[in-house]
C-alpha cells in the first residue's frame, strides 16, 4: 500500500505540481489549500506524512502543525520560503520533523520523505524479539518497547511522534554511549555532513518534555558538551 502524503499549500501552482510529482514518485497524495482544510483532512484520513507550507493565508503553517500534532504523530516536512532561519527553528519547536527551502527539487523533497518513512536503521536482522527497556528509576517507570514502537510510563502510553520515537530508539540502542549530532542526523534524518544540527537539538528538547520528570534538568537524555547526546539508564 502506497504511503499517503498530505500536501498543505495555498499556492495552486506549487500544490498541483507537487501533487503530480509525488504521485509520479508512487505516493498517494491528498492536498489542502488551507490549514483549515488540512486539519479536516488529517481528522478524516490520517496521512503517513505531511508536507506543509509555513506561509498560508488565514491560519498559518505553525498553527496547523500545532493542531495536527494533537491527534497525529506522522512526520511533518515544512516547506519554507523565508530564509529567516528562526522560522525553521520555530516550526521544529511546534512539531515539524524536517524542512526544505524553496526553491527545492522534487528529488530533494522525496529524499526527505523517504528518510522519515524509513524503518529504524538499528533494527536487528534476526526476528528475535527484544525485551522492553526500562529507561528511568522513577515510579512509575518509563518503559520503551522498541519492537512494538511504544513508550509507556506505567500503564499510560507516552505520545511520541514517529521521529521522536526513532530518535529515542537510536539513543536507547547504545545506552551510556555518546552519539554526536552528526551521527543522529545521519541515522534518523538521513542527512549528511551539511545537515542542520539544530534539527537534532530541537527534537531532543521536544523529546525531553515527554520523557523527563524535570525537562529542565534532564537525567535520561543528557547533553555531553561539545560531543552530542547520551541516553542514561538508571
Amino acid at each position: 500500500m502506497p504511503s499517503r502524503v498530505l500536501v498543505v499549500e495555498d499556492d495552486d501552482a506549487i500544490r498541483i505540481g507537487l501533487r503530480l510529482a509525488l504521485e509520479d514518485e508512487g505516493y498517494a497524495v491528498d492536498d489542502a489549500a488551507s490549514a483549515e482544510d488540512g486539519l479536516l483532512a488529517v481528522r478524516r484520513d490520517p496521512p503517513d506524512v505531511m508536507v506543509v507550507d509555513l506561509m498560508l493565508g488565514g491560519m498559518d503553517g505553525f498553527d496547523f502543525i500545532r493542531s495536527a500534532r494533537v491527534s497525529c504523530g506522522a512526520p511533518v516536512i515544512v516547506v519554507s520560503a523565508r530564509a529567516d532561519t528562526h522560522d525553521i527553528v520555530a516550526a521544529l519547536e511546534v512539531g515539524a520533523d524536517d524542512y526544505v527551502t524553496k526553491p527545492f527539487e522534487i528529488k530533494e523533497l522525496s529524499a526527505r520523505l523517504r528518510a522519515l518513512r524509513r524503518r529504524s536503521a538499528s533494527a536487528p536482522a534476526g526476528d528475535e524479539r527484544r525485551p522492553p527497556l526500562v529507561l528511568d528509576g522513577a515510579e512509575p517507570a518509563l518503559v520503551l518497547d522498541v519492537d512494538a514502537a511504544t513508550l509507556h510510563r506505567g500503564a499510560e502510553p507516552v505520545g511520541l511522534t514517529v521521529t521522536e520515537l526513532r530518535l529515542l530508539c537510536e539513543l536507547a540502542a547504545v545506552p551510556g554511549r555518546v552519539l554526536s549530532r552528526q551521527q543522529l542526523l545521519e541515522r534518523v534524518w538521513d542527512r549528511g555532513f551539511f545537515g542542520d544540527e539544530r534539527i537534532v537539538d530541537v527534537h531532543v528538547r521536544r523529546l525531553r518534555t515527554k520523557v523527563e520528570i524535570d525537562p529542565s534538568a534532564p537525567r535520561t537524555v543528557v547533553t555531553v558538551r561539545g560531543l552530542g547526546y547520551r541516553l542514561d539508564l538508571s
Partner: protein
Amino acid sequence: MRYLADVQAFSRGPRSRRRAGLRRRLVVAVTTGSVLLATFLGTGTFVLARGYLLDLRERSATRATLADAVVVREGLRTAGRPVSEVLGSLSAESSTVVALRRDGAWYGSALSGSAQDLPSDVLDAVRDGHVVHAWTSLDGRPAVVVGVPLPAVGGELFEIRAADELSQTLTTLRTVLLALTLLTAAVALAAGRRLADVVMGPLHEVGSAAGRIAAGDLGTRLAPTDDPDLSAIVGSFNAMVDTLDERLARDARFAADVSHELRTPLTALVTSVEVLRGRASAMPPGNERLLDVLATGLARLRRLLEDLIELARAEAVPDDTSWKVTDLRELVRHTLTDSGRDPDLLTPGPAVTVRAEPRMLRRAVVNLVENADAHAGGVTRVVVHTSTDDALVHVDDAGPGVPWPDRELIFERFARAGRRTPTSGSGLGLSLVRQIARAHGGDVWCSDTDAGGARFTIRLPRTTAGADR
C-alpha cells in the same frame, strides 16, 4: 567603498612629502609665534633696562665729577698749591681716572695716558664750555667719561669711571632673557603638540570611524559630546551614517524580498518541469529537447536566485545558532563528494579547524570549483593548509590563469572579465565567495599556480578545536 579607501591610502604617501600635515603646521605655528613674542619682549626688556641703567650710571658719574670740580676749582684758586696736590686731595675711588687740562698741559691722578685718548668731540665740547658725558673704554673695559669746564681757573676736569658692574649686570640680564626665550620655545613646542592633539583627536576619531564604516561595520557611531563646536560635526556625521545604514538596509531588504517573492513561482516551475521530464518518454521526441532547454534555463535561474539569497544572508548579521567549529578539510572533502567530484583532488593532511557556518562555506567552495569548471577546464588540485593564524584553501585549475588587471575585478558582482564568456555562471559566484569569506573574518584572492593556471585562495581565521556548545 573598500577600494576607494585603498586608493586614498595609496595616494597619501607621496603627498605628505610635498605638504606638511595639519598637525605639523599647528605645532610650527604655535612654536614660532611664541618664540617671536618671547624674543620681542626679551629684546624690549633688555633695551629699556640697558637704557635706564646707563642713564643712572651717567647721572651718578656726572654728579660725582661736578662735586670734584668744585673742590678742584677752590683748590686751584688758593694760590701756590700745585695741581697734583689739588687733584690728589680728591677722595675718588681708585678705579677712577682724574685728569685736568690746563693751558694745554695734562695733569692726572694716575697718568695712565688714557685721558689723552678721550674722544675729540668730548674734548671740543668741554672746551666750548659744556658739561659732557660720554662712553669710552678704560683698559678695554667700558667706562663713562664726564668732562666739566672750569672757566674760573682756566682748566677742564675729566673723570673716567669704569662700569664693570654695569656690564656684568647687563650680561646677566641678557643671559636670563635668552634662557627665558629658549624655555618659552620648549614650552611652546610642548603646548603646540598638545594643542595639535586636542584639535586632531576628534578628527582622528572621525577618520577611524569612517574607516570602520567603510570596512563594513555600519554600527559605528561617534560618541556624543557636549563640546558645542564638535557636537554639530558629530551630529551630522552620525546622521550621515544613519542615512547610509538605512539606505543599505533598505537596498538589501529589497533584494531579499524580491528573491523571496521569486521563490514560490520558481518552485512551481521547477516542480512542473521535473514532472514533465519524468514523463518525457510519453512525449513526442522533439519536445524532449525543448524540455532540456527549459530545464537548463530554469536551473540557471534557480542558481542565480540561490546566489542572491546567499549573498543577502552573508551580508546579514550572522545567525549564531548555525555556526560551529568545523574541520575545514572534512568540509571540503564532503563538498567535493556531494557534488560528485573526485575526493582525491584534495591533498591529504591533518584536521584544520575553523569557526564557520558549514552550508555557507560549502557554497563558497562549490562556487570556486564550479568557476574552475566553467572557465578553466576544471579543478586540478585542492589544498587545505595553515599559516600561523589562518586556515587556507587553495583551489587550482587547469586554465590559462587570470591576467593581473582582472584579479580583483572578477570578484565584482556580474563582472565577467576579459575573455571569459558568459556561461552557466550566475555572475555572482565569485563575489559571493568573497562575501562569505569576509563574513567569516577572512578573504579570498586570485593568484597563479606554477603550471600557469589560476589559484583561488580562501583565507579563514583558525580556531582551536574544543568546547563549542
